[in-house]
């Protein structure tokens, strides 16, 4: 099966690839949004703890 046919998928290539593409976007999106939120929280808390240290 040449790569071309693999992409073409007997005429249904567009549908198959678009659904897998969207799936990839959503899975990666879920992962990234969680990581970013974590990073933001950690930075925010560290800044806050440094603040508290300075005050003591």
């Amino acid at each position, binding site marked *: 099966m040449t790569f071309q046919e693999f992409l073409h998928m007997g005429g*249904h290539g567009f549908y198959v690839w678009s*659904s897998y593409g*969207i799936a990839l976007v959503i899975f990666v999106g*879920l992962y990234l949004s969680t990581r970013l939120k974590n990073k933001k*929280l950690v930075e925010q808390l560290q800044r806050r703890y440094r603040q508290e240290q300075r005050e003591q």
Partner: protein
Amino acid sequence: MTWQWFNRLTSPKSYFDITDWLLPPMLIISVILMMVGTYLGLYDSPIDYQQGNTVRIMYIHVPTATASMFGYVVMAIAAAVGYIWRIKMAHMAALSIAPVGAAMTFLALVTGAIWGKPTWGTWWVWDARLTTELILFFLYVGFMALHSAFEDRELGDRAAGVLAMVGVVNVPIIHYSVYWWNTLHQKSSISVAGKASMPVEMLTPLLLMMFAIILFCTAISMYRIRNEILDRERDKNWIKERLSA
């Protein structure tokens, strides 16, 4: 002994220690399994005699649909446990599962619609499964909307908990009434290939993908629980040590 184990799980600090070493492997395994499943599903499995290659969309649609339904039930149980025994961790778990479940429902709806186009000729078909997914999506959105409507997070937890409990009682009712409604207006005859009657080359990637996606969702939800703990227990000193170390 079990009670002690249960206590360890419900204390945020020990949850953090456990997930420190548990989450990364879980995530990696689920990603690898997903890749293998996609490879098998896209390249190595046979095409359907009627639908041709579009059946490959099933390897995303069916697992995400199952994950969304499974997610809602787990979310409702967590919310119920949190509401009845007032365990904050359970509320945090319910709150973390909701967006992941909603994303899975959305993905199931989108892939279902894309799958419908070549097989039934229209983007949206009021097929029983798709309609139940759509209603499930409303329930997820309702849960998240209600929770964010409360300024005091704790009240939001309890209110969303009640809603989840009422919702989970209704999910089977909605499921069967939509199926009954669908048979009432049944026009399209092609029924999506049932699990049992599938050839084994199709079954393995499907089950593989199902396990991988559910594992991935669990890992992401557990990760989100960690965020929730950081957010809510910010002035606890075990967090201070952990973060400033």
